């Protein structure tokens, strides 16, 4: 014990004393460092935001440019050298298939979301709450199914679509898109169902409801945030999809936004830039907006899907 206290005393003696001068220096250094870190933070934020959004900002500017302004060589592309015009925007809405594409996308998206929920909700509930000995393996398999690439499957789908007589129809997409949305939705929903305390459903069953009724009346309403997340996710996946949409549809009237814009607004070699950029921007913004509102939900759903219960 004595040796220990001596050792401590010796160690203390080596430690530098605090003196006011040195402290004031450290204080100043700390303040400078804090300031510098704030500057760096805002600089990084601005640079990152610009790099990410640069093409969209340009899109926004281009939309209102006159042809002579746009195609004039050497002119500053970021400002309006001639007065801006809404002529191209008008053209987009009235003389191109843009509105049709939007309509198709909404329709396909809506039906796909409905089908996804019908398939994924019961399956996720079963895997989350009614496990059979093979449920764990099955859940993983469903997730792995997601890995099978559309770039391979389209080959078989090509025959399937023509066999079903759905070639050149948006209903082909309605049939095929759930292959993309269902696996991930099942995974998300398993996480959300597991986060609901069992007690509440068990209470319902004690109160006289059957398991099925407990599912419909208790679990589903409580998993509502998860359902919202799945709706947005599934809709987004279906609006984004490009391969099947371009492979199986050729008529303008059936195209969705993802395919219609890159293909239909380019006539021969002539890029109708203003219409093109406007269309892309008009589609990007609403999706981004909704996504931002629900960002936190996604993240928690994702991580919950990974937590075993």
């Amino acid at each position, binding site marked *: 014990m004595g040796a220990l206290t001596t050792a401590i005393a010796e160690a203390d003696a080596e430690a530098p004393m605090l003196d006011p001068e040195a402290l004031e220096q450290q204080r100043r250094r700390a303040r400078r460092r804090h300031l510098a870190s704030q500057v760096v933070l805002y600089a990084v934020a601005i640079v990152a*935001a610009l790099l990410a959004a640069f093409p969209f900002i340009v899109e926004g500017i281009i939309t209102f440019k006159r042809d002579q302004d746009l195609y004039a060589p050497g002119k500053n592309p970021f400002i309006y050298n001639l007065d801006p015009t809404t002529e191209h925007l008008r053209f987009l809405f009235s003389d191109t298939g843009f509105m049709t594409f939007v309509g198709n996308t909404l329709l396909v998206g809506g039906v796909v979301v409905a089908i996804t929920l*019908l398939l994924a909700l019961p399956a996720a509930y079963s895997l989350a709450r009614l496990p059979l000995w093979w449920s764990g393996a099955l859940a993983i398999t469903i997730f792995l199914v997601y890995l099978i690439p559309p770039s*391979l499957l389209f080959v078989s789908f090509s025959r399937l679509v023509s066999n079903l007589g759905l070639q050149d129809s948006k209903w082909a997409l309605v049939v095929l898109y759930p292959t993309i949305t269902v696996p991930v939705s099942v995974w998300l929903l398993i996480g959300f169902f597991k986060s609901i305390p069992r007690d509440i459903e068990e209470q319902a069953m004690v109160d006289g409801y059957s398991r099925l009724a407990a599912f419909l009346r208790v679990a589903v309403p409580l998993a509502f945030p998860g359902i919202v997340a799945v709706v947005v996710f599934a809709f987004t996946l279906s609006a984004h999809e490009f391969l099947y949409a371009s492979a199986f549809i050729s008529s303008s009237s059936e195209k969705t936004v993802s395919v219609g814009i890159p293909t239909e607004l380019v006539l021969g070699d002539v890029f109708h830039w203003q219409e093109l950029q406007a269309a892309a921007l008009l589609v990007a913004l609403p*999706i981004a907006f909704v996504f931002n509102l629900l960002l936190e939900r996604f*993240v928690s759903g994702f991580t919950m899907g990974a937590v075993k219960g």
Partner: protein
Amino acid sequence: MRSGLADREGFLARLMLLPAIAYIVALVAVPFVIAIAYSFSDVTAGNPSYDWVGLDNYRANWRDPVFKRALWNTFFFTAATMVLTVVLANIVALLLTADFRGKWVVRFLILLPWTTPAALGAIAWVFMLDSLLSPIDWILQQVGLLDDNRHMVWLGKSGLAKASVIGVQVWRLVPLAAVIIMAGQTAIPDDIHDAAAVDGAGFWRRLWEVTLPLTLPVIAVAALFGAIITFTDMSVVRVLTNGAPVNQTQVLASWAYVKGIDGGNLAQGAAVAVFLLPLLLAATVAILRAVRRWEVS
């Protein structure tokens, strides 16, 4: 209360699984097997009858320089994209976990590349990289890095075109990877950061010795997702360069599309796409191992 069908849980479990499983088997598992079978046949859009040709399609591919280029590009683009994405996404994640004014706006803008459909994001870049109208060229000209009447021709020159494809893929993947990594970073308890501050660790030491090691699993997940998305993607290549110049930027997915849909030769398309499977198999193994480790801990 009589226990009816709605109560027998074993029965209910199977019944509720049935629609989803049936759909997946019918529309994924079966087509998957059929697609592989196609690669050994001579099925085309015009001639749908199945005739076995063995490895003919594969041999033809092997002799085709475009196929070899596509194979190389697929791996190269994916690897390059993933390295850049992981580095940038970590920086963006740190940014998003910090507190500052205007955060919602910055977050909105940073997420735009991911929330936009890939094809439409590519369209935006088609303009940005256009051989005549590129605003980037204009800026370079103003700054003096480029002669006033010369253009970079981003999408026309082989090296630049490849860089452009990688650039666009990184551009659209960083937001997704950043969000995933951010989730991992916020999972680190605040206490640990406080303790590191008390222990005397500055920003860089904390980042290197605490934050990065603890988010390594999440970074791996983000990298895996990003790699799979890039590896199997055809829309960016298709819309941005369409394989140009001279098929120098084709990847397996886009080349399979060219063969199968543009060319109508489904069998050859399948033979190309089959080569995507090795990496996906590796990804499968990685995921399964990670799951098993999770269940053990």
